[in-house]
């Protein structure tokens, strides 16, 4: 169980980079959790990871695994990184080119301070680790003769061979090509569940985060914008930043009609006069200004003369742009003064200039702030 409290690490303003880091970050992970730190570059996700690893020294806060304190600024505890018992996969994999695959993976066992492993144990553990990542028989290969995907697997095998308490993954898939990346995404998640290892994963790719995680923290400028399970992050973004970052959302501005309780449906008058009903996850007062997130794929596009009903919202507009993407089509639809992005099945087409209706379920529109 990983516990992080009040983690703060701030970088000063350098000439070439603006101040970065992480501010007052707290979370607790039950054993076996796959936790993802998600955000744009410079949001503090890598800093958080490196503080947990011990590669950076936090300015303040507390880091614990179970009852072992790794770092505590109040009492000055700071366990050196090589005594933390953490496995880590680096973005560049950091496979040592002067060693074989076997030696790369055996390294953590050879330098272990808490116990000595004999030759048989090392062989057994390395073989087991190689088997886990699907590279049995690759041990004798020089590390320089590995493909990107294989390097990635070796890095993972090395990170888990000494049975760490925690696994840290720093954008491990970003150096792979698209097809391999999707395959490794599934593979990594399967491995993590099989070993049951608590894992902290850093990425800027929202699809990766949604596909693999038990828990996601979306970060922005060193602060947590939202921390929740993938479905909640996706369907109930807590604020505009998260809504924008997780898939391209349409954001509509308007005013709440009447006071609404948390999680209830309420009515919003949009700035251009349309009225829609939507979910208020945190509730809202009457006359308060609100922003509503509307996903492109929740919008159903239909001909301008189709039926409307009270069980869903309807907006009238005109198609101003259409691109065929294979399985889906993307439309830009002008509704009054604003352009809404719509993802629709590609079997029916609406040429530019067609008047259309956009309908969407009441609970697919979410107030985000």
């Amino acid at each position: 169980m990983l516990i992080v409290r009040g983690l703060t690490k701030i970088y000063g303003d350098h000439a070439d980079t603006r101040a970065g880091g992480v501010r007052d970050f707290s979370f607790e992970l039950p054993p076996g959790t796959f936790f993802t730190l998600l955000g744009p570059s410079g949001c503090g996700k890598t800093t958080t990871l490196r503080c947990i690893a011990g590669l950076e020294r936090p300015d303040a806060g507390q880091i614990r695994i179970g009852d072992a304190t790794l770092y505590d600024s109040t009492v000055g505890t700071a366990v050196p990184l090589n005594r933390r018992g953490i496995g880590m996969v680096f973005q560049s994999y950091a496979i040592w080119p002067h060693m074989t695959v076997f030696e790369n993976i055996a390294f953590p066992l050879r330098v272990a301070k808490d116990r000595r492993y004999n030759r048989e144990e090392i062989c057994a553990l390395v073989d087991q680790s190689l088997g886990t990542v699907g590279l049995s028989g690759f041990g004798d290969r020089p590390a320089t003769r590995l493909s990107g995907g294989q390097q990635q697997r070796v890095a993972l095998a090395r990170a888990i061979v000494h049975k760490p308490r925690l696994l840290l993954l720093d954008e491990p898939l970003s150096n792979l090509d698209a097809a391999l990346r999707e395959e490794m995404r599934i593979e990594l998640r399967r491995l993590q569940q099989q070993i049951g290892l608590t894992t902290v994963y850093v990425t800027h790719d929202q699809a990766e985060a949604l596909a693999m995680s038990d828990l996601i923290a979306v970060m922005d400028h060193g602060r947590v914008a939202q921390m929740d399970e993938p479905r909640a992050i996706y369907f109930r973004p807590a604020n505009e930043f998260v809504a924008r970052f997780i898939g391209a959302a349409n954001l509509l501005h308007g005013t709440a009609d009447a006071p609404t309780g948390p999680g209830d449906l309420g009515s919003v008058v949009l700035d251009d006069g349309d009225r829609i009903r939507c979910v208020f996850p945190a509730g809202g007062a009457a006359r308060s200004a609100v922003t509503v997130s509307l996903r492109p794929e929740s919008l159903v596009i239909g001909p301008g003369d189709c039926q409307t009903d009270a069980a869903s919202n309807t907006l009238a507009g005109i198609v101003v742009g259409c691109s065929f993407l294979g399985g889906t089509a993307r439309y830009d639809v002008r509704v009054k003064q604003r352009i809404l992005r719509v993802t629709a099945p590609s079997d029916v087409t609406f040429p530019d200039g067609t008047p259309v209706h956009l309908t969407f379920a009441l609970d697919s529109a979410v107030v985000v702030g």
Partner: protein
Amino acid sequence: MNIAAADPRVIIAVVVGGVLVALMVPPLWMLLQDSVTTTDAFGDVTGLTLQHFHKLVIEKRALTSLVNSLVFAAGSTVLSLLTGGALAWLVERTNAPLKVLAYLVAIISMGTPYVLHVIAWLFLLGKIGPLNDLWRQVTGETGVLFNVNSMAGMILIEGFLWSPLVFLLLGSTFRAANADMEEAARMSGASVFDTLRRISLPLAMPSLLALALFVFIRAIGGFEVPALVGMPGRIYVLTTDVYESTVTVPPDLGHAAAFSVVMVVIVAVLLAFYGRLSKNAERYHSITGKGYRPRPFDLGRGRWIAGALIVLNFVVVLLLPLLTLAWMSLLPFLRSISIAGFASLTLKNYRAVLTAPGYIGLAVNSLIVAAGAATAIMAITSLAGWIAGRNGPGGRILDQLATLSLVFPGICLGVAVMEVWLRIPLPVYGTLWIIGIAYVIRYMPFGMRYIYSGVLQLHRELEEAAGVAGAGTMTTLRRVVAPLLTPALVAGWLFIFLIANKELAIAVLLASPRSQVIAVAIFDQWVNGQGGELAAFGLIWTVLMTIIATVFFVFTRRGGVDVHGN
């Protein structure tokens, strides 16, 4: 129409190739010819002979010199690699304090003529120097604790001479190293020491070996230390043997040529090894992550020990020699450092240096020759390096021609160039021109390296885009390639300018009373016992060169090229 004939690059390649052949081939040819022929009093060839080589083999002295050369080069290589390497690691990869001192040493050393450094060390460790002085006062003995004119003294001084360059070159290796590799080891549970032993050192080993060989080659060809430190102690190496047989009356040029051929062969073989080692070094470079900011090791309490080592290096390699020179420059005659000496401190030497027209002329001469040679080299190599870097017509041949002079130790090149121009009926021998020509030949490989790697860093599509936009080869070269190569051009120019003013070996045989350059003048003055004025003049010169070295250093750091154009 024949496309190849229409390619302006072919014309460029032929012209540049012609210039390079004219520069590079005659000295080599002349050495070979001299080594296997007999000549009459007018220098005309009278017959073929193997007597020069025969003499080398039967004379015991030749073998002694060879062994001395190898011991000297090996010893100073090890010393400079240990001191410079340890310093580079501390500065680039740890959080040791006072790092700026290490750079200060490197920059000022870059601007100081080798010969000046050697003289300072000779005094420091010499008979009347503070080391032996102190020992005599403490023990009451009358002899010396340490005889500087010994192999040990030579190795010590040469090692200190090279350590700043090793620091800079290894520093860039450590800086470019992927920090992930070390962090991964730490995350795997390794201590700082384990990481250093099992990861950092093995990863740096190919670069270390290549650099060791590089220093070894330069030390084999080194002249300043063997001449100033070794010769008074009757310790001869190959370079001083060549020098002696050239300056004795009458000069035994066949002997010098035969010695030179032996050295050229040794260096050529070592260079071939070096080429292979450098390729090996690049193999590890191919697997790196993305560019990260450097993340130094935390040494904990060891920080202060590391800081002390950096200070020690600063004091020993820079401060002591400079203070010694200052002491020498402020005294009317050379004497050991003592309280009594302070009473006779005077600025007389500085006044003499600043008022005598000879010194000003000397400085102007040196600056003109170095600047002229650097300009000529960059002009030639910018074309040759571009064609070679783009695999243009004859690119490989141009590259080999331009780097051919690497096989010459400086003193051998001096002999060869002298021989060439003694036989050409142009009034070049005895003027500054011959020194300039020798510089151009000698430092051409450095210019080539700067331009070549500069070209490799330019994306080929930048030129292709200019071509598609309608620009011809010459326009592309002028409007696209040249502006983008400016950093490499400037860095190369400054490097050549600095090193030309530093080295003694080439010019020592070519300078005449009418055409002196700095290093030779300092050498002559030391030999003539004019220590005070030479120290004063040397210090003023060092200040000037340090300014240029600082410009060079800041420029290369910002432009992302390291000291050797990588």
